[in-house]
């Protein structure tokens, strides 16, 4: 151990490089050489890359846990978290308005990212193992693993980033991999569109993240988390939003009092916009249900365990900024609560198993945001971890079921439809057992990890209050936490209900997929065959999946069941919370528990148990005891409501009509402009003008020599006229003008020219001489007129006048009136202008 510590010191922890490099190399090798390696080789490469990364993460985590604390205590920060940093290189420096801000490619491991990286690599490894069997028959096998490894790499970059810039790189990386993996079967238009939708919706959120980064650079002069945490108090300033400083506004737009907001509020809200996109909250959640078009392992890894949790990770990372703004926290918690209930309502009416799980993911993400939004960063993040386990397990079980269904029902929608399933607990015991365990966890059955994490979140929502020392900031009213709690309870009941609905529809009752026949049929399972009309399907019984798929199920189910031992506050097991305490210490100074709330912990625990019983009991009653008849009766009683809920409240259609319609309209306008304005006017007009000019010039090209000769004569006549008329012009030599006041005018020569000069007001008179130059002396700031008359051989006379001025450097020529020749200006006049030269 000590050797490791000397090899990787705390501030140059290059083990991180290895952790990051392994999946990257795996992605590269699988992507470039995948075809040559073959399925076996690709599998080995990918699994060993992620597995190796996981082992290194374990080593790093062990070092982190065992790191001596006194080193940091001596620095004076009693609460400082142990942090292993590694600075790869200086990326660039930007001008932050007041100072230069250096941005490095730097990574760090602290308790928060340490635990998260274990989850990412661990769950990632399990899902790699699962996919090695699930995607066995897919021709894009190597491409899949390349993308998957790339995703793990990007997620690690995101988590281990030491500043917001590196985090943003990882953020975009996971977005890209999500697009690639969702649209993995891109030859189908619907799936490719789902990938695009995910990416574009993410991008809308990323705009908020960029704005937040810009604000932090400007106000705090740094993007590094540790620096921001140390100086977070300096962010607590107010900023006038309306009227915009520096902008002139007409009187009727000026408010009576300027509208101000605090900078942490603005930064936190901008950060939360990014989280809304990445973690699928209202209103940017629309991409996640469509993302089920990708393979199921993708849904498990990306949309359950890791990518969507990046938003909560970001909030936890910048918890000290959020804690400075009660308004932003309230927005976060409120959005989370609303999303939780909204998504739960949609899940009631879905028949596709994966869609149910997708909406439950959106809903659970809402809970995580409720947690971090109420100041319970540890609780919220603990829910992230438990969700990774039970939702990952649920998705993998769903994949296992779909895999079994796909053998006979080749139609994709049919193989995922719960109405074709049923009674599978007889045929797929392992899948059934792990699905049940995870279902209990998500519904909040006591003594599963989901119970403790969800309960902790709700309790803290009920009990916490966010204070602020800054004057004039909006603080949430006292009933806000309780309102969030109430909404959360409603959502939890719904969660338990629809999850068990899915469980009962899939695993209980009679199998509705096809007629189970013992003997193998002639039109076998291999390949896809046409269904001839309405022939009822026949096939073998659905069978359990191979060990590569069931082993991860088992591991995840065990964690889902037992992970609560690290953090179960009612039972005084708070190892994880204490481990994370230094990370959230700065933020926690603003969070207080309301008086008398702590006594409510156990009663609320009872409420949690009641939630589970109500939800699961209700589902059992409706779907097992009554065989689904109450549900059908409800659908018959309120068909319109059912239709709207089944159509996801028509949110996608609303977006189509408004935002997308607006962009389409802009596109149409641009097309019209292009056709009429650019093509019609500019292109045709210019070509028309050129044609016109050409036609005019063509009139000269008659081919007749005499016409050409006539033009020559005209030209010669013009030149002759120019030569024969006198032209009066002179050059001023002002080299010595400023110093001594001498200015010399030299008239331009011409054939047979004679000249006549005069200065001042008098007109030239007398004889014309051949004297071509004229000198005069000016006083300071004096302007004088000089007249020149020129006569040529034929007696024609031309006149011109020049007005030189002796400029002394303070604009006295342009400011003062030009005097008639001879008036002097005193030097003292320069001071009346008021400015120094």
């Amino acid at each position: 151990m000590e050797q490791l510590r000397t090899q990787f010191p705390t501030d140059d922890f290059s083990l991180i490089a290895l952790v990051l490099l392994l999946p990257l190399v795996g992605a590269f090798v699988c992507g470039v050489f995948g075809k040559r390696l073959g399925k076996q080789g690709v599998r080995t490469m990918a699994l060993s890359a992620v597995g190796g990364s996981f082992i290194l993460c374990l080593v790093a985590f062990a070092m982190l846990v065992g790191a001596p604390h006194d080193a940091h205590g001596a620095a004076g920060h009693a609460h400082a978290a142990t942090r292993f940093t590694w600075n790869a290189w200086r990326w660039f420096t930007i001008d932050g308005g007041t100072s230069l801000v250096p941005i490095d490619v730097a990574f760090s491991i602290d308790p928060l990212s340490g635990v998260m990286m274990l989850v990412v690599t661990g769950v990632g490894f399990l899902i790699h193992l699962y996919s090695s069997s699930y995607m066995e028959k897919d021709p894009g096998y190597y491409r899949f693993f390349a993308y998957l490894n790339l995703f793990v790499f990007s997620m690690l970059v995101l988590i281990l980033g030491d500043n917001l810039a590196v985090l943003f790189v990882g953020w975009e990386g996971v977005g890209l991999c999500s697009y690639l993996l969702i649209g993995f079967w891109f030859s189908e238009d619907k799936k490719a569109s789902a990938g695009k939708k995910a990416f574009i919706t993410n991008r809308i959120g990323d705009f908020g993240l960029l704005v937040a980064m810009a604000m932090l650079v400007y106000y705090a002069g740094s993007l590094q988390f540790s620096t921001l945490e140390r100086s977070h108090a300096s962010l607590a300033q107010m900023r006038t939003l309306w009227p915009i400083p520096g902008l002139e506004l007409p009187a009727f737009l000026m408010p009576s009092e300027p509208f101000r907001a605090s900078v942490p509020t603005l930064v936190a809200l901008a950060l939360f916009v990014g989280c809304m996109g990445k973690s699928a909250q209202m209103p940017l959640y629309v991409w996640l249900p469509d993302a089920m078009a990708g393979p199921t392992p993708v849904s498990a890894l990306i949309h359950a365990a890791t990518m969507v949790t990046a938003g909560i990770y970001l909030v936890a990372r910048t918890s000290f900024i959020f804690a400075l703004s009660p308004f932003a926290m309230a927005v976060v918690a409120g959005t989370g609560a609303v999303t939780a209930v909204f998504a739960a309502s949609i899940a009631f009416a879905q028949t596709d198993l994966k869609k149910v799980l997708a909406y439950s993911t959106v809903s659970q993400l809402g809970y995580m945001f409720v947690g971090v939004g109420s100041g319970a960063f540890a609780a919220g993040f603990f829910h992230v971890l438990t969700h990774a386990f039970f939702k990952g397990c649920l998705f993998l079980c769903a994949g296992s079921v779909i895999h079994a269904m796909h053998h006979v029902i080749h139609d994709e929608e049919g193989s995922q439809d719960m109405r074709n399933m049923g009674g599978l607990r007889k045929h797929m015991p392992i899948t059934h057992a792990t699905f049940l365990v995870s279902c209990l966890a998500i519904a909040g059955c006591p003594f599963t990890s989901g119970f403790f994490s969800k309960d902790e979140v709700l309790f803290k929502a009920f009990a916490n209050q966010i204070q602020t020392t800054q004057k004039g900031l909006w603080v949430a009213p006292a009933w806000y936490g309780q309102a969030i709690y109430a909404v959360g309870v409603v959502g939890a009941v719904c969660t338990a209900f629809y999850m068990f609905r899915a469980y009962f529809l899939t695993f209980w009752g009679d199998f509705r997929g096809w007629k189970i026949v013992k003997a193998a049929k002639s039109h076998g399972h291999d390949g896809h065959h046409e269904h001839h009309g309405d022939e009822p399907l026949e096939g073998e019984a659905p069978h359990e999946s191979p060990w590569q798929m069931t082993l991860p199920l088992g591991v995840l189910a065990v964690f889902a069941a037992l992970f609560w031992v690290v953090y179960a506050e009612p039972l005084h097991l708070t190892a994880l919370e204490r481990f994370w305490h230094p990370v959230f210490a700065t933020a926690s100074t603003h969070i207080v528990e309301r008086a008398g709330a702590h006594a409510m912990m156990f009663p609320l625990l009872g409420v949690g148990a009641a939630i589970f019983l109500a939800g699961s009991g209700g589902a059992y009653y409706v779907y097992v005891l009554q065989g689904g008849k109450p549900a059908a009766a409800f659908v018959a009683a309120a068909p319109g409501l059912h239709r709207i809920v089944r159509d996801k409240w028509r949110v996608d259609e609303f977006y189509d009509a408004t935002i997308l319609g607006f962009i389409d309209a802009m596109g149409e306008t641009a097309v019209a402009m292009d056709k009429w304005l650019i093509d019609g006017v500019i292109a045709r007009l210019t070509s028309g003008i050129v044609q016109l000019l050409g036609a005019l010039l063509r009139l000269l090209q008659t081919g007749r020599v005499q016409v050409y000769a006539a033009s020559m004569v005209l030209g010669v006549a013009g030149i002759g006229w120019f030569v024969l008329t006198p032209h009066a012009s002179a050059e001023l030599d002002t080299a010595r003008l400023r110093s001594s006041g001498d200015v010399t005018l030299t008239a331009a020569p011409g054939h047979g020219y004679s000249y006549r000069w005069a200065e001042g007001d008098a007109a030239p008179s007398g004889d014309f001489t051949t004297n071509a130059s004229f000198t005069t002396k000016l006083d300071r700031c004096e302007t004088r007129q000089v007249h020149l008359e020129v006569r040529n051989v034929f007696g024609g006379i031309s006149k011109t006048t020049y007005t030189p001025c002796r400029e002394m450097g303070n604009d006295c020529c342009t400011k003062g009136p030009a005097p008639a020749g001879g008036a002097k200006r005193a030097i003292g006049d320069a001071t009346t202008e008021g400015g120094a030269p």
Partner: protein
Amino acid sequence: MTKMQTLEWAFFAIAALLTLGGAVATVAARRPIRGAMGLLTTILGICGCYLLLHAEFLATIQLIVYAGAVVILFIFVVMLLGSSAESPQDDRAKVSRYVGAGVFLACVLGAGALMTSVTAERSKALPAVAATYGTIEKIGQELFTEKVVPFELTGALLLVAVVGALAVGRGKQADPTLASTSDESNPAEDRPAGEEA
């Protein structure tokens, strides 16, 4: 005025009349042979002017080369062309033609006025010239010493002109069927390549 002066004026008047009359005849004649005769008259008038200006050598050359060669050349060509040399009466654009003539007259008068105003003072004092001015000896001396290069180049130019005239004027090789038998054989042969160019 003395007798000499009167003679000079008379001589000048005749020369000027010949010149301008011949010029107008050249330009306005319908038949080119008349135009050639007008050219000859102009040349004779110019020759007289040269004599007044003490340019005897040049006057001689003028007669030999211009009157004796160039005009003859013109007459040869007119004879070669025969009746085709004559252009039919062109009734088109009579008005523009008279307008053109009026413009021309105005230009002439304007040029005259311009010239007079410029050189009115100068001509009061013409320098006297030596008796050898404009003689063949003096010009010969200058030609073969200072201006020998242009002289040689002009010789070369004349050679080129001779060869060029031969080459262009000779036309196609021995084609007696041209212009006379055009009805039977290729009518297009008369106008080859002209339209396509």
